[in-house]
């Protein structure tokens, strides 16, 4: 079953800006894919539709077979708990520790403190930041902050992870490390969708690439079977 299903989806904002036009694609359970295109191509809007930060003007978005248009306002929080999101500016709260930042989704979901501590530590351990749990995020480097953001996104064990320019402000080496983390989550069956305009980084990884331009689907290139070196030329750029 498709994990994420876009069926002829359009999104226009008040004022007439058309962010997405007649977009159709599917992401399968356990798949990892890049979403690429210039800024303004509609990458963020697409992710926002999956997160229900916006609603589609036309067409249908289905996640796990559920039509998001049918969710009531009260159900939206529960939908969001099943999706882990990593933001470009990581959206960490500087008034609390790294531990509390990662614990936030669990506190919201109603975990007891014992389960919560165990899970937060497992999550921080996964991104290699367990030793920083008591620090404030402001004391960490950009790459470390982004990894805290990832720890927060996965602490609830979502089956789908969305990332909006997760390597936007990072150098290639750090970017590669971040991508490795996403690959590791994908290895245990998590579906991952990463929006990025970093063509070089994408080219170095053999994953499916969904390209957008002006809100339309420009190209959809599957990962080459068994290949380690992807062909960046296979992706049309406009």
């Amino acid at each position, binding site marked *: 079953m498709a994990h994420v299903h876009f069926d002829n989806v359009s999104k226009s904002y008040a004022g007439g800006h058309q962010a997405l036009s007649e977009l159709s694609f599917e992401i399968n359970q356990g798949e990892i894919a890049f979403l690429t295109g210039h800024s303004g191509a509609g990458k963020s809007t697409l992710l926002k539709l999956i997160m229900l930060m916006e609603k589609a003007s036309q067409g249908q978005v289905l996640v796990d077979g559920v039509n998001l248009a049918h969710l009531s306002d009260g159900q939206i929080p529960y939908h969001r708990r099943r999706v882990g999101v990593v933001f470009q500016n990581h959206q960490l709260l500087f*008034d609390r520790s790294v531990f509390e930042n990662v614990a936030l*989704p669990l506190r919201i979901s109603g975990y007891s403190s014992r389960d919560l501590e165990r899970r937060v530590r497992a999550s921080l351990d996964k991104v290699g930041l367990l030793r920083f749990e008591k620090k404030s995020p402001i004391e960490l480097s950009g790459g470390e902050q982004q990894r805290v953001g990832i720890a927060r996104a996965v602490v609830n*064990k979502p089956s789908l992870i969305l990332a909006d320019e997760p390597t936007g402000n990072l150098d290639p080496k750090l970017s590669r490390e971040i991508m490795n983390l996403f690959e590791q989550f994908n290895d245990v069956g998590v579906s991952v969708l990463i929006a990025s305009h970093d063509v070089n980084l994408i080219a170095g990884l053999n994953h499916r690439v969904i390209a957008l331009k002006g809100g339309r689907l420009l190209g959809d290139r599957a990962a080459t079977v068994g290949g380690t070196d992807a062909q960046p030329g296979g992706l049309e750029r406009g």
Partner: protein
Amino acid sequence: MAKQPLYSRVSGARHSKITTQSRWAAYVQHHKLTAMESLQRLLKSPASSAMTWVVLAIALALPMTLYVSLENVKQLSRSWDQSSQLSVYLKTETLPRFGQALSDEIQQLPHVRLAQYTSPEQALSEFSAATGLSDVVHGLEDNPLPGVISVIPNLDGMGSDALQALEQTLSQLRHVESVQLDLLWVKRLFQFMELGQRLVWALAALLGLAVLLIIGNTIRLSIESRRDEILVVKLVGGTDAFVRRPFLYTGIWFGLGGGLIAYALLSAGLYWLSGPVENLIVLYGSDFVLQGLSFGDSLILILDGVLLGWFGAWLAVARHLAKIKP
């Protein structure tokens, strides 16, 4: 510290089950945590919090001060109730035995402390004794005085309505010519107290509204300053109730603090006044005792603060949170 793999089963990238019991425990735990955090947040900026608390305290204390004053006046007037007396004049042709019977009947009415019949003869002799005009009185062909029943009501602060109702009842009885309220000023006092009571209510309503607005505005600022946090909480699946919670607790803390300070202000004020009032009472030889806040009143004062705080916060949150959409 036991490390556990985050995703333990390869295929099981799924939500683990949370039992209702642990969810409830976590819910209670989160309430405690939020309450403590909200309080700590207020104490972190002590100057501005204290200012808000004092403003709230004044708004809460003002109607309560009026209320306490009114209660004291009421207590004072209770002793005056006894001196208010109704004179029931009977028709001239009423025989003394009917007058006595009527007096006994009136004695049985509610709100009557004492009814005493004075026959025309008694009245005349009392009159002649009091005025020293016995010669003139003896010269009279007929006794011009009617029989009178003196009624001392037992109203115990029930207000002028009860007094009026009693007057009405008495005037409709058989043999009764007219009823005269001896102390009109008691009636007036009751009216003034009723006016005072309404004033207390009006003031309480106005200042209650002020408390709501003060708290609403404070919470609005707090929401603005925590905008980022609200956004993140909403994005990782926080329900509206979860987002609202810290602000409601902030409102409750403001209300509680305001109520407690109002209580302290009132108590201090009463203590400050008690000396002069006592001296005054001694001079008047009255048994009046300055009434402070009763336990119930204090509780109501503090509880009102808490409720208004909570409600004000709720209004502000309902209004402003809707605007923060992720």
